[in-house]
């Protein structure tokens, strides 16, 4: 079943104005895939720890580097965005929250909560580190 015919497609990404609904939907998918990559990192981290203090310190040093910290904050934000978005999805699965006002309210709550939780986690870890 080949989908690569030469017929023109209607434009979509080029013309539709981004809205909270579509942007959050895409963000939920994107953060999900990104967290999948972080899941690989989790297994690598556990494997390094199981291998001994030397491999473990290599991973720890990377996490303390600038790139490591950027990836860590990015990962924390992805996590909270996907978590809050996921809870919004689970709420929809109960049949609630489909009125347009509720959709936009819950959408903005997801954005706000994710940002606040990311900042809180970051501050918390900075305070408790060392």
């Amino acid at each position, binding site marked *: *079943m*080949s*989908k*690569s015919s030469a017929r023109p497609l209607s434009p979509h990404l080029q013309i539709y104005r981004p809205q909270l609904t579509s942007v959050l939907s895409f963000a939920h*998918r994107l953060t*999900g*895939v990104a*967290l*999948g990559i972080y*899941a*690989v990192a*989790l*297994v690598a981290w*556990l*494997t390094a*720890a*199981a291998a001994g*203090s030397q491999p*473990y*310190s290599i991973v*720890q040093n990377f996490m*303390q580097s600038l790139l490591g910290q950027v990836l860590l904050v990015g990962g*924390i934000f992805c*996590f909270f965005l996907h*978590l809050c978005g*996921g*809870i919004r*999805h*689970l709420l929809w*699965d109960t049949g609630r929250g489909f009125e347009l006002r509720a959709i936009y309210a819950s959408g903005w709550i997801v954005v706000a909560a994710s940002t606040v939780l990311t900042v809180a*986690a970051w501050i*918390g*870890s900075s305070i*408790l*580190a*060392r």
Partner: protein
Amino acid sequence: MRSPLGRARGLGSAREGVESWWLERVMAVALVPLTLWFAASLIALGGSDYTTFIAWLKTPLAALLMVLLLIALFSHLALGLQVVIEDYVHSGAKIPVLMAAHFACFALAIAGILATVRIVLGD
């Protein structure tokens, strides 16, 4: 989760899939406390040394929750990746890519569990 008539007649445009839908949600609900526990633990451990980390993971509760996290995480990921792949890959590559994603999630879950078990039983 479906009626006998629905199952017998294959009702619905895709004819089947409610089990995947349900499992994804069950794993999602399990992941809420598990991931929050993991995040809180990482923050509490914050940059501590190897010995402290190993001692923490060796406690029965941490070991159990870590294994449960790995199982729920990779089940949820496998189902999520399946949906994404089915949305974007339509050529002959779809089946091998789907299989690769499932195999990878399974292998990673096992690898993570083995590493956890090695740490718990080690030293």
